[in-house]
């Protein structure tokens, strides 16, 4: 029954199918973290090999052969010092490294560094989707972030309900989205690509499908995308889409979803002004095509059980009209 959604190969082809994202960083911070991780991994492997070699050697060399009792040794202060000092030195070096990186990677609160400026991007976590705002240009979208390559952006993360966590394995550390406070992180992609993100703090039934993507593109393309996102929706032209818009306006859709250019101003659900321009639907549960959109509209609960969008029990004609309207929102 579920084979028609998100297992379709197209979704994996669209996003970067990186095997181990944490080890394939695309941001300076993620590179730094990968490097320290590999260093600690190497040290750990060395310690592991030493200890296991000693253990296994003991099992082989000192296996009991009969009644003879071994020398009853009680300990040695020298030995204790000998094997405490090197680990202590390692731990202290790691402590120094950890401290330096904590300071260099953390983004100080905006109120400290630039009290009068808004963040470059504001991400608000909802159960179970991402509200994306670009304060300076007035663009609002959902579940998909675009950034220009090579620019260090200040991202403010908030939550509208419970604790979520903003995590892009290839683009640097995760930061929790805690209701009642603003957290900040630096976001910088050093090469073009589409990077997958996921909510990383259990936030309820659909935590598994609270995913998002970041598209890093050249400055010109980014600006073009931003300009489109900032504009209100253009009126649909085809009859079927117009019928769809009437339905949407008449039903309670606009109580949750904003479509700039209509009377709507809600944020309980994702902004739909340019929904057709996005690559995925439902925060990553399915790719965004007319077919999948229609299926979603027919029964959202089938794809994200527990999601807050009711089933409007549209008949076939209404489904086609609404789909056509939403498809016109590019």
């Amino acid at each position: 029954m579920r084979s028609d959604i998100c297992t379709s190969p197209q979704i994996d082809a669209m996003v970067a199918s990186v095997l181990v994202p944490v080890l394939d960083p695309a941001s300076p911070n993620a590179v730094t973290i990968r490097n320290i991780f590999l260093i600690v991994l190497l040290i750990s492997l060395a310690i592991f090999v030493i200890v296991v070699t000693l253990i296994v050697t003991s099992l082989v060399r000192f296996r009991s052969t009969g009644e003879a009792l071994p020398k009853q040794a009680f300990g040695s202060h020298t030995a204790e010092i000998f094997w405490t000092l090197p680990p202590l030195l390692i731990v202290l070096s790691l402590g120094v490294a950890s401290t330096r990186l904590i300071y260099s990677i953390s983004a100080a609160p905006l109120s400290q560094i630039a009290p009068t400026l808004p963040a470059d991007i504001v991400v608000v976590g909802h159960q179970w989707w991402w509200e994306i705002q670009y304060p300076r240009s007035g663009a609002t979208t959902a579940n998909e972030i675009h950034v220009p390559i090579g620019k260090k952006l200040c991202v403010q993360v908030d939550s509208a309900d419970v604790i979520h966590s903003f995590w892009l394995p290839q683009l640097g550390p995760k930061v929790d989205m805690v209701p009642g406070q603003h957290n900040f992180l630096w976001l910088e992609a050093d090469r073009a690509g589409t990077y997958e993100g996921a909510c990383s703090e259990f936030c309820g039934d659909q935590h598994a499908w609270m995913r998002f993507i970041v598209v890093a593109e050249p400055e010109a393309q980014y600006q073009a995308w931003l300009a489109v996102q900032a504009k209100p929706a253009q009126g649909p032209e085809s009859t079927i889409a117009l019928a769809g818009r009437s339905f949407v306006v008449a039903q309670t859709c606009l109580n949750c979803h904003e479509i700039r250019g209509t009377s709507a101003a809600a944020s309980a659900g994702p902004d739909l002004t340019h929904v057709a321009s996005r690559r995925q639907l439902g925060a990553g549960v399915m790719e965004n095509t007319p077919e999948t959109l229609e299926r979603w509209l027919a029964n959202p609960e089938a794809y994200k059980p527990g999601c807050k969008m009711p089933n409007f029990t549209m008949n076939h004609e209404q489904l086609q009209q609404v789909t056509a309207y939403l498809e016109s929102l590019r």
Partner: protein
Amino acid sequence: MSIESLSGSGLVEREDENRSSLLEWFSSVDHKQIGILYICTALVFLLIGGLEAVVMRIQLITPNNTFIGPRLFDQLFTMHGTTMVFLVGMPILTGFANYLVPLMIGASDVAFPRLNAFGFWLVPLGGILLHYSFLTGSAPNAGWFSYAPLSERAYTSLQGVDYWLIALLVLGIGSVSSAINLIVTIIVCRAPGMSIQRVPLFVWMMLITSVLIILAIPALNSALVLLLIDRTLGAAFFEPSRGGNSLLWQHFFWIFGHPEVYILALPAFGMISEIIPVFSRRPIYGYEFVAASTLAIAILSVGVWGHHMFAVGMSPVYNTFFSIGSLLIAIPTGIKVLNWTATLWRGSIQLTTAMCFAIAFLIQFVIGGLTGVMFAVAPIDWQLTQTYFVVAHFHYVLFGGTIFALFAGGFYWFPKMTGRMLDERLGTITFWLLVVGFNLTFFVQHFLGMMGMPRRTYTYGDHPGWHALNAISTLGAFVMSLGVLVFLWNVVRSLREGAVAGDNPWDAFTLEWATSSPPGKDNFDHVPPIKSRRPVWDMNHPDLADWKTSRTPEDRRAPHSVAKLAAACFIVSEAMFFLLLMAAFITFNHATGATSRKALEVGRSALFTFFLLSSSVTLSRAERALRHSQRRQFLGWLGITLVLGLIFLLNQAYEYSGLLHHGITISSSLFGSTFFTLTGFHGLHVLGGLVVLTAMFVLGKTDRLSARQSDAFTAVGYYWHFVDLVWIVVFSIVYLGVLT
């Protein structure tokens, strides 16, 4: 013929034995039976928690699976974690401690046998309460650490979380009572010659663990109580939308949660420290260093809770502090690992099943510990926390570590507890099934975490490699389950037809092996002389006796009163509880304290504070009268104490009604919430004290209290003075505005 004249013959005794055996178990206050009850209860919950895990792994075997939906999955991972920590880990370790500690120190039972039984029966009660929630629409489903505000009513309206809160409170009371019992037993009930420097390392570890329990569980209790008040009485401690602070829950929970993982690990370290030496035919290498490093771990463990919160946005100063503290814990842990390894080196190693499990523990714990060091480096945590990498880490230390140590302990001490040996061939099969199954299940999860798979997700998309690794992990879970079943079969079979064990089948070293298997009712016919850390080794190998080559300090202990020591431990636990409630008060009132306080009548409260503090003076007078057997003065002073305490409570009731009339309730504002919670719990403690003091008054009146019981009365007095001391602090903070 009368019953009395028949009692000498075997006939009547045998009938009594058979008839009362089930009743005997249910009403037992014998530490050995209670220990076994704990262990059996834990095994039942192990099966339940294990089943929950297997169902989850089946759901995760393939992407986009529909075996179960998110609702049930959320309940399963919540129940699995809660069950394994509170209904398996803690009870089974408490069970082994209960069974072994009195034997190892040459005592005939714990200090408070009836308290021991009480502590045990809270475990089935808590377990039933927790599982009853399945019948109320939803088991708890907010995760085993129940982060706010997800766990608040607004986001989780079904009652599962309420059952979770109440069950954990019940279980916590049991844990604290067992911990107090163990501390007093270890300090007071050691046989002559058993100085604290000579106790088996398992006993030392249980002493330290018990101290951690009385510090950590009250912190959990304060968090649970606050969330329960939020959910049922409409307060908003953890709801940011109404002025609360969701991170406060995390702080309080992890102040409990981090010491908790050491509470689960240290007893396992203790078992390993007994088993490895016996099957290396040598003493533990570096006893003092293993003991001292345990103390270091315990001290450090109460100061590193923030490493569970590296990603919440704390300032770099705090992150650095917690990072360095967490890195430092690696040192004493490493010292232990190296001492265990050094015990093996040049030993004479016997690879019994118990020893195999101990070796596997060693290797797997090193893996878990090393990934722990990775997490201590905060930036690495910022990538890998809340992914399958951390799931792998904690299963390596808790299952690969603690549970494997428990299997080792099971094979090692089963002969002592039952008089029969477990089958070694079945043991070997169990061992390999568990080692292969465990590592298959959890090693691959390290990679899944690095590949971006978050934890607590009921399904996942078809990312490259995720399907294969998840399938391997699920396969491992089935192999592990098989291992557990083989073990249980081994237990059942060996109980019936296992080889007879004898007193000391392993030629082991410590006192529990100096008596029969199983031990008689009072444990020892006579305790062998104790002149070193290995009294039974000394007895069986007199030429190589430890005390000839390695001197340990003589037993020069001062006598302790069990009642006073128990009261002191209880006071420490209550102090932690109040400390956190005060912290909550200060958190929410430090900016607005002055305005809120306008509703309070400081002058009147000061007067009644005077009444309460005077009651401490009158109680001391009563104590002195009792010690000098002056019954009338004792009753007089005690009576005045009761009256003063009652006056205080009556004023508190009057004050409360005044506040309620002014619209200040527990849910009207954070001042109301914190005020009523803090002063309310204090009032409950006063009430509890009055009840106990009234009981003592009645005992005194009916002439059943004498100078000999003055220690017990003084212990109650400690509690009363403590409650008054708490009031001084509460009064200063709430009424005088100190710290707000």
